[in-house]
């Protein structure tokens, strides 16, 4: 049972998840020597932090038993608005306010999601899907209509690929800080209790005189802001923002959170698990891309597109890992 005691006694599922990480690294290092190099691990942690920051918000949403499918284009929105801020706010404001502006746009999108889910009582799974389409529409309009500037500001670049502490990429620092805040929020704060409670029985929450709808809106807003922040960092990393930059993040985000032991129906899950899930997914994707699996099969005379093996192995590994620790109780 994942509740406020999460950190006190770590759930075995999370431990197994971390075990899987070690296992993956082991396999990787056997297959390819360069694998356990510090360079590679740091590299993985850096890319993991982008996913981690995005997943942080979505995880809160899933704890409430909701889901946020709007992240792909909210990510893009965050990035493109931050880089385009100059064009929109003018040079004097645009330069310094680029990052806050980008994040605020995401926050706004999240806010609309929240209102739709909490006050219009629309199912989050589809309302956020609609929001995703709207965000996409806005971004296409933005690029198509205004030939916007898409270069990241120096600050964004620094945040995304600089090193405040030697050898520790800044995104990782940001993720650590954000993670710390969220862990505190989930375990020590009133909001955290209310999030878990809503995920368990919103009806009881309402009758306990807690305005669950405000909490819902707030959490969706946080999710939007996290996604946008991820977008800002991503465009800082590529030193550019671009259309569809968020598309590769939807499914990995959900997979990471669920692999981390968060219950899709809400009410149960720990941030520690999400961290594990994020690292798992990142490693898995990277290993599958680096380890050229097709070569092995080619030796066996099976000549097929590389992606065949990447996809199949990806799917199988997820199933196996979930079998190890992600099983639900039998109904009795």
């Amino acid at each position, binding site marked *: 049972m994942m509740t406020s005691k999460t950190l006190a006694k770590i759930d075995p599922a999370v431990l197994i998840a971390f075990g899987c990480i070690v296992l993956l690294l082991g396999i990787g290092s056997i297959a390819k020597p360069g694998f356990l190099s510090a360079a590679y691990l740091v590299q993985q942690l850096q890319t993991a932090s982008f996913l981690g920051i995005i997943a942080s918000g979505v995880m809160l949403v899933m704890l409430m038993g909701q889901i946020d499918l709007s992240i792909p284009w909210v990510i893009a929105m965050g990035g493109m608005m931050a880089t385009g801020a100059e064009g929109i706010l003018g040079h004097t404001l645009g330069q310094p306010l680029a990052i806050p502006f980008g994040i605020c746009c995401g926050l706004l999108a999240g806010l609309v999601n929240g209102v739709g889910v909490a006050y219009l009582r629309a199912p989050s799974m589809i309302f956020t899907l609609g929001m995703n389409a709207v965000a996409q529409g806005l971004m296409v309009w933005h690029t198509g209509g205004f030939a916007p500037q898409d270069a990241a500001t120096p600050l964004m670049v620094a945040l995304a690929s600089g090193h405040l502490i030697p050898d520790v990429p800044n995104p990782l620092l940001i993720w650590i800080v954000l993670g710390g805040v969220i862990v505190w929020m989930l375990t020590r704060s009133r909001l955290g209790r209310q999030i878990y409670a809503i995920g368990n029985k919103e*009806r009881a929450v309402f009758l306990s005189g807690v305005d669950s709808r405000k909490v819902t809106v707030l959490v969706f807003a946080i999710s939007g802001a996290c996604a946008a922040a991820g977008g800002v960092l991503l465009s800082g990393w590529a030193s550019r923002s671009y259309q569809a930059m968020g598309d590769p993040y939807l499914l990995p985000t959900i997979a990471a959170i669920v692999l981390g032991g968060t219950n899709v129906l809400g009410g149960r899950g720990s941030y520690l698990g999400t961290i594990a899930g994020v690292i798992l997914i990142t490693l898995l994707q990277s290993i599958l891309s680096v380890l050229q699996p097709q070569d092995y099969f080619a030796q066996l005379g099976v000549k097929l597109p590389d992606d065949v093996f990447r996809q199949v192995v990806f799917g199988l590994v997820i199933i196996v890992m979930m079998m190890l620790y992600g099983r639900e109780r039998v109904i009795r």
Partner: protein
Amino acid sequence: MTVAQDPAMKRPKRGSWRYWFAAQRGVLVAVAIFAVMFAVYGAAQPIGMSADVVNTAVNKGALLALVAMAQTLPVLTGGLDLSVGMTFMLANCLASAVVSGSPGMTALGIVIVLVAGLLCGLVNGLIVVYGRLQPLIATLATSAIYFGIALAVRPTPGGDINGAFADWMTRSTYAVPSSAVLLLAAVVLVWLPYRNSVLGRSIYAVGSSPQAAYASGVNIARAKLSAYTLAGLFAALGGLLLTCITYSGEARAALGNDYTLNSIAAVVIGGTSLFGGFGSAIGSIFGAFVMRTVGDLLIVFNINPVLQPLFVGVVLLFAVSLGSLRLLRIRNKLDLYR
């Protein structure tokens, strides 16, 4: 003891319309939205509602409709199937390889495709039921696998299908599109019998309350297995129709995911509850047509290309929010927190 001798027995009640409407409200709303949209489309269409226009629209809509029907079943059990899109695509790739040649071979090919679909669904079901994984992650994983297989079957777009069969599936006779007939058949021959069988009802039971269903002696495993397997079949039907429309097969991840996500939207617009236990595949069909008609509106209202995605998004959000009108009737706030 037989009930017949019971003194307290009175003559049985008739089914009352009130409850029928309550049960069908989701479907009816979807039908209404669709009717309005399609009327607008027809009116704005320069050449009016010619048989060709209708046929084109139905062919397009039928694909998503079938995938949405597939999505409906797992959703009714309180689950979700993120692999319907990829199953749909796998069937498409497979069909482009095996559904050709003599009528006999073609028929055999069709059977192969449908069986493949059933298998995909069955695998999902087995993982969910006996692997006891949350459907969302289980099907997320299998969708990756099915895409991989589809890619293996069809590394590059192409392939072919029995032309006569394909034409016959996509033509419209006496202004009745064959694809519409296919949908009707899927409903009358598969959905309705299933829904009115003990097995079909048991998926509603499971979705409504797993514990209660178990305590009532409902076979939960069989219910879920049947739901996911049948979903595979519907998705494969869709893939088959797609092959008839495109005369080819293609494995493109974006396409599969597009269909998966849209199918969920269609199911919801069709009035099925994502918590399970309430809804119908028929609603999903209209939900799908609503989704697709939005695209048609783009064409008839000459909308600025860079504004088109925004238009689609806004209409979708609007359609979703329509459901909130029911809030106006609510007097007891507890009804909000089911």
